[in-house]
C-alpha cells in the first residue's frame, strides 16, 4: 500500500472511532473532555501548518486564538448579534496581524519570527487587558441563555463535539491536500534548507506567508469555537502565553509536520490534563505546566520529530537495523 492510501485508511479508522466516542462514553464529563480534545487538536493542527510543515516556529499563536475568541463575544456584547457572526471578524483581524508580523520577519533568520510572535502576542494581551471596549481585565461573556438556535448555545457538549469534529476533518483534509501538492513540496524544501530552496526557485517568503495566513485563520476559528462553547473569555485564557504553549506542546508531542501528530498529541495530553486537574484541583495547574515544560524540553532534546517519528524510527530500526535511519530520512 502506498503511504497516501495508508493515510486514508488510517483516517477512516480514526474518524469512525471519533464519531462513535460520544455514544461509548455517554456522560457529561467525558463528552466535555472529548469536545476539549477535538478543540485542542484543531488549534494544534492549525499551528502545525506554519510551525510544523513550513518550519517557522511561532511561540505567540495565542494572538490568533485570542482574536478568534474575542470577536464573537464582542459582536454579541456590543450589537447583540449572534456570536457566530463574529467568526469572520476574528479571522480578518488575525490575517491582518499575520501580515504585519510575517512580512518583515520572514525576510530574516528564523529566530526573528519566533521572537516577533511572542512579543506581538504579549503586546496584544496587555492592550486588551487595559481596553474597556473589549472588556479590559474582566473579559467578555456570551448570551446567558440561547435566544435562537443561531446562538449555537447548547447545554450538552455533544453538539459542540460534532461541530468540532466537522471542522477538524475539514482542516485535516485541507492539510492533506496541501501536503501532497505544490505547497507541501515547497514547505518541506523551505524547512530543510531555506538557502537551497531559494536557489532552486522556491518563492520562500511567499510560501512562508501562505502557511502563516492559513495557520492564523484556522487558529482564529479554533478560538471562536472555544468562545462559543465556553461562553466567556478573558485576556489570560484568550491571549495568555499558556494558550500558545498548549498548541505547541500538543503538536510537538504527536509530531510536528505530520498530518495526525497534533491529533495524537491531543489524545494524550487532554485526558492527562483533565486527570491532573481533577487530582490536584486548581493547585495542580502549576504542576501541569512544570510537566509541560519538562515534556517540551525532553522532546526537543531526544525526539524533535515527536512520537509519530519516534515510532517510525523504532519500527524501521526493528525491521532493518542497518538502514533504518537512511530510509526514514528519505
Amino acid at each position, binding site marked *: 500500500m502506498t503511504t497516501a492510501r495508508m493515510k486514508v485508511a488510517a483516517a477512516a479508522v480514526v474518524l469512525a472511532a471519533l464519531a462513535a466516542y460520544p455514544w461509548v462514553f455517554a456522560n457529561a464529563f467525558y463528552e466535555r473532555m472529548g469536545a476539549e480534545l477535538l478543540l485542542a487538536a484543531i488549534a494544534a493542527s492549525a499551528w502545525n501548518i506554519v510551525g510544523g510543515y513550513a518550519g517557522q516556529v511561532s511561540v505567540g499563536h495565542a494572538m490568533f486564538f485570542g482574536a478568534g475568541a474575542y470577536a464573537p463575544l464582542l459582536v454579541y456584547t456590543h450589537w447583540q448579534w449572534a456570536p457566530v457572526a463574529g467568526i469572520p471578524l476574528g479571522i480578518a483581524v488575525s490575517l491582518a496581524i499575520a501580515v504585519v508580523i510575517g512580512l*518583515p520577519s520572514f525576510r530574516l533568520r528564523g529566530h526573528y519570527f519566533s*521572537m516577533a510572535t*511572542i512579543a506581538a502576542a504579549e503586546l496584544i494581551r496587555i492592550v486588551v487587558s487595559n481596553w474597556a471596549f473589549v472588556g479590559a481585565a474582566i473579559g467578555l461573556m456570551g448570551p446567558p441563555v440561547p435566544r435562537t438556535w443561531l446562538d449555537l448555545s447548547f447545554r450538552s457538549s455533544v453538539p459542540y463535539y460534532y461541530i468540532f469534529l466537522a471542522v477538524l476533518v475539514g482542516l485535516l483534509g485541507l492539510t492533506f491536500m496541501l501536503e501532497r501538492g505544490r505547497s507541501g513540496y515547497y514547505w518541506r524544501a523551505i524547512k530543510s534548507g531555506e538557502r537551497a530552496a531559494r536557489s532552486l526557485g522556491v518563492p520562500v517568503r511567499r510560501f512562508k506567508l501562505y502557511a502563516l495566513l492559513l495557520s492564523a485563520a484556522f487558529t482564529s476559528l479554533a478560538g471562536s469555537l472555544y468562545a462559543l462553547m465556553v461562553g466567556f473569555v478573558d485576556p489570560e485564557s484568550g491571549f495568555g502565553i499558556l494558550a500558545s504553549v498548549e498548541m*505547541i506542546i500538543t503538536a*510537538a508531542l504527536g509530531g510536528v509536520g505530520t498530518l495526525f501528530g497534533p491529533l495524537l498529541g491531543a489524545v494524550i495530553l487532554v485526558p492527562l490534563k483533565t486527570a491532573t486537574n481533577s487530582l490536584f484541583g486548581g493547585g495542580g495547574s502549576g504542576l501541569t505546566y512544570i510537566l509541560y*515544560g519538562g515534556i517540551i*524540553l525532553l522532546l*526537543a*532534546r531526544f525526539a*524533535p520529530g515527536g512520537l509519530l517519528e519516534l515510532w517510525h524510527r523504532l519500527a524501521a530500526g526493528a525491521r532493518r537495523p542497518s538502514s533504518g535511519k537512511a530510509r526514514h530520512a528519505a
Partner: protein
Amino acid sequence: MTILQIVISGLLLGAVYALFSAGLTLIWGMMDVINFAHGEFVMIGMYVAFLIVTWAHGGPLVFGPAAAALLFLLGVGVYFSLIRHVIRGPMIAQILSTFGLALLLRYLAFWLFTANFKTLPESLIPGTLDIGGIYIGMPQLVAGVAALILTLAMHLMLTRTTIGSQLLAVAEDRQAAMLMGIRPDRMQAFAWGLSAAGAGIAGALIATFYYIVPTVGESLALTAFVVVAFGGFGSVPGALIAGLVIGVIQSLSAYVFGPVYKDVVVYALFVVILWVRPQGLLGRA
C-alpha cells in the same frame, strides 16, 4: 526637571537591561541560538538575592557574586546537557529546548515561591541622592553603575583578552578555530556560563528595587529581545547602547502613556525595528 529625572532613571534601568541583553546577544551571535529562558535566568538571580537576604542577611556584595557564580554553573550545565545536543538539530529543536526550559524554570519557581510578590528591604542600600532637585534612589544608582561597569568589562574581556579572542574566533568560524587549537565546545560552554552569570547578577542588582515574582522573566526576556534586535545581531556595544535607549524609551512612555503601556511601546518598537532596520543599530545586515 521632571523629564531629566525620568531620563536618568531610564538610563539606570537601561544599564541593567544592557547587562543581561549582552549575554543574550553573545550567545545569539556565537551560536545562532536564541535563549528563551534568559529571562528566567534573571528571575533566578533575583530569588538568589532574596534567599540570601532573608536567610543569611547577606548584602549586595554577597548575593551579587553568589548569583553570578550559581548562574554561571547553571549556564554551563544547560549547555552540556541540552544546547550541545540540539545545536545541529532542526530549528524547532533549538527553539523548543530553551522555550521548554523557560516554562520549567518559571513554574518550578511558581511552585517553590508561590505567585506572591516579594521585595527586598529598602534598608539594604539606603538613601536617595539629591542633585539640584533631581532625586536618584541609591539602589537604582548602585545597580545602574554596577551594570554599566560589568557590561563594559564584558566587552573588554571579549575584545582584549585571550579567552575573549578565542570566543570570537569560534563565533567567526568554528572549523578554523579548531584548526588553531581552540576547543569550540569548551568556548561555547564558557559563553553560556558568562551569559547566564550576566543575567544572574543583573537579576540580583534589580532585586534591590524591583518586585520579585516567578513570571518576571517573561517581560524581561522580551525586553532583552528588543534590545538585542535593536542593538544588532551579536554586538555587545550595540546591546549597551540599545539597552540605555530602551530604558529611556520605557521610562518616557510610562510617563506619557501611563505605566501599563511602558512594555507595549517597547514591544511595538520590536515590530517597527523588523520593518525599518532589521539589522539593528550596529549590526551587520
